[in-house]
């Protein structure tokens, strides 16, 4: 048997629905249709009345989930694309994100954001929005990069008492497979050394993990041992694991798929520069997408996002310094 990243998301939801009465799924086309990407395939039938199609009302979808969560439910909201969460952002940041702090009553919603670029998807179906959500207080923001994490982190997201923005990468949906669902898990908040090395640390997350691993593999042939850290969650961000890696390698390259101003890569570098300055043997570097909307044409799209060429070039340059 083999299971894709997408199937892992489905299975995690099936299990959450099965094991916890408080769980329901709320989103456009998630019911009988099984979701635009089929992440809820079959669930409406298996769990009647608990997987509900919604109107095209992202603000109200999240608002409804918030009210239900305050009353003790564990809603999972599926955005059809992360990009459309821009119209739900107010409820996520200002309502869900502030509720526990203001009232002492937690607001355990999970908002699933099908994120990231795929060929031909263009400016409004490709975005990675983790930075907007992580900047504001009160939210946990996770970015699973593996089938295993897609599964366990979604179960964790539902289980924890705080609002979680779960950024699932659309490119990984079908491209990533595992033999089976994991039996145990690394908790949210811990980064993972995805590949050990001693010459350079690439710190990354989500789909960029795989481009980074490819670069590490490719450069291994050139004799470099590149360590690759998968952040797994960008908030909380596991600074300790990153610092430990930089302590080993002395060199830091951060790779993210989102826009270049701010965001995860800036935050990681700012932390390492502040807390691990003396660990660094060379200037840390970032590779991000370009500072334009995400292009439709595959040629432009692959030039816009970081890729093994641009990551490799940055890594080589860093190793020369």
């Amino acid at each position, binding site marked *: 048997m083999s299971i894709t990243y997408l199937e892992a998301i489905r299975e995690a939801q099936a299990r959450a629905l099965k094991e916890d009465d408080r769980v329901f799924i709320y989103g456009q086309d998630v019911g009988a249709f099984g979701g635009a990407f089929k992440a809820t395939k079959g669930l409406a039938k298996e769990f009647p009345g608990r997987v509900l199609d919604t109107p095209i*009302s992202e603000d109200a979808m999240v608002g409804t989930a918030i*009210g239900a969560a305050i009353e003790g439910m564990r809603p999972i909201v599926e955005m059809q694309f992360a990009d459309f969460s821009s119209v739900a952002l107010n409820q996520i940041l200002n309502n869900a994100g502030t509720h526990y702090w203001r009232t002492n009553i937690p607001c355990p919603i999970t908002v699933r954001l099908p994120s990231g670029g795929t060929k031909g998807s263009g400016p409004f179906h490709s975005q990675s929005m983790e930075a907007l959500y992580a900047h504001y207080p009160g939210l946990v923001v996770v970015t699973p990069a593996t089938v295993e994490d897609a599964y366990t982190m979604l179960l964790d997201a539902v289980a924890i008492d705080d609002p979680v923005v779960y950024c699932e990468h659309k490119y990984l949906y079908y491209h990533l497979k595992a033999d089976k669902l994991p039996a145990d898990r690394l908790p949210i908040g811990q980064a993972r050394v995805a590949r050990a090395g001693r010459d350079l640390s690439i710190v990354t997350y989500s789909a960029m993990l795989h481009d980074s691993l490819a670069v590490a593999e490719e450069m291994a042939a050139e004799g470099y041992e590149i360590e690759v850290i998968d952040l797994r969650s960008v908030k909380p961000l596991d600074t300790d694991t990153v610092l430990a890696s930089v302590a080993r390698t002395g060199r830091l390259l951060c790779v993210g798929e989102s826009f270049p101003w701010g965001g995860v890569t800036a935050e990681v570098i700012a932390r390492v520069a502040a807390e691990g300055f003396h660990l660094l043997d060379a200037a840390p570097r970032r590779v991000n997408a370009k500072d334009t909307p995400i292009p439709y044409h595959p040629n432009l799209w692959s030039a816009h996002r970081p890729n093994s060429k641009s990551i490799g070039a940055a890594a080589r340059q860093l190793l020369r310094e």
Partner: protein
Amino acid sequence: MLETAGRKGSSASTRAALHDRYLEAFRWMLLTRVFEEKLASLYRGGMISGGVYVGRGQEAVSVAGALFLQKGDIFSPLIRDQAGRFAFGESILDVARTYLGSRQGPMRGRDGNIHRGRPAEGYYAMISHLGAMTSVTTGALLAKRFKGEKNFVGLTTIGEGGMSAGAFHEGMNIAAVEQVPLVVVATNNHYAYSTPNEREFACVDLAERAKGYGFEGYAIDGTDLGACLETIGGAIKRARAGRPPQFVVATVLRLSGHGEHDDASYITEEVKLEPFARDCFKVAEETLLKHELADRETIAKWRREFSAEIEEAVGRAQQEAAPQGDEEDWHAISDRGLIDQMG
């Protein structure tokens, strides 16, 4: 609507013409009036940080909803709903503590003035963004249905200004799709801050929007407590009985500034002569006197009693320790294992 029954010179029969909770409602209105006068004076005295927003002129609409709510119901009020908040069970001390920033208040000084609630008791704490609470209330009702609760309703409020917000529209529509027992009480007080109705909407009758959502809709004179009790009470009854969501639009004039900082000089003398510019409180008071449900002394006595309670609560809140930065844990999430360790 009450005056319609037009009776004076009291007798059992004329009293019966009054809604049986008229007096009770009036007392909440009185408490609100007295308390908000106190808040305004504290504000003028520089004793309150931030703004004070009062419900003067719309106490009748506000109280009329909350009065019919019961344990297990959800109440999501907004800034002009002090009367409803009291009727729903909020304590005088909670109000005083929140305005004065006591750490013992329900918001512990973290949030202030009217941004308070006790969600565990069904009393929701609004965020400022208008319209946002409509869907939240809907979600609470959905949860109750999921949990198998019975006989519950939710009530939330909105101003005619907030009705322009996209969030309000989405919330109304989704409530209707979910057919939750929701009552939405809108108050058209003719202004959103300084903005008059002409620049807020262009329809003839806001209650007309009910139909477009699949709500049952009603328009009432918000200066008439009896009409408010009758219609909003009826709406709550219908929602509880499983009818579609209910929408009531009450017409009044805001008899204050937007907040106490605002002298409302933009409200024209002309508009103040409109029938909707009557003070619901005075109308109710006169009605009570006329029907001899209370005499002036009794009302004055109540006022004194309320005043004393308020003074006590305010005094107490003022004496309570203020929150201190170094006593806060400064964490916005509840799961201590998931706190981001910032640099």
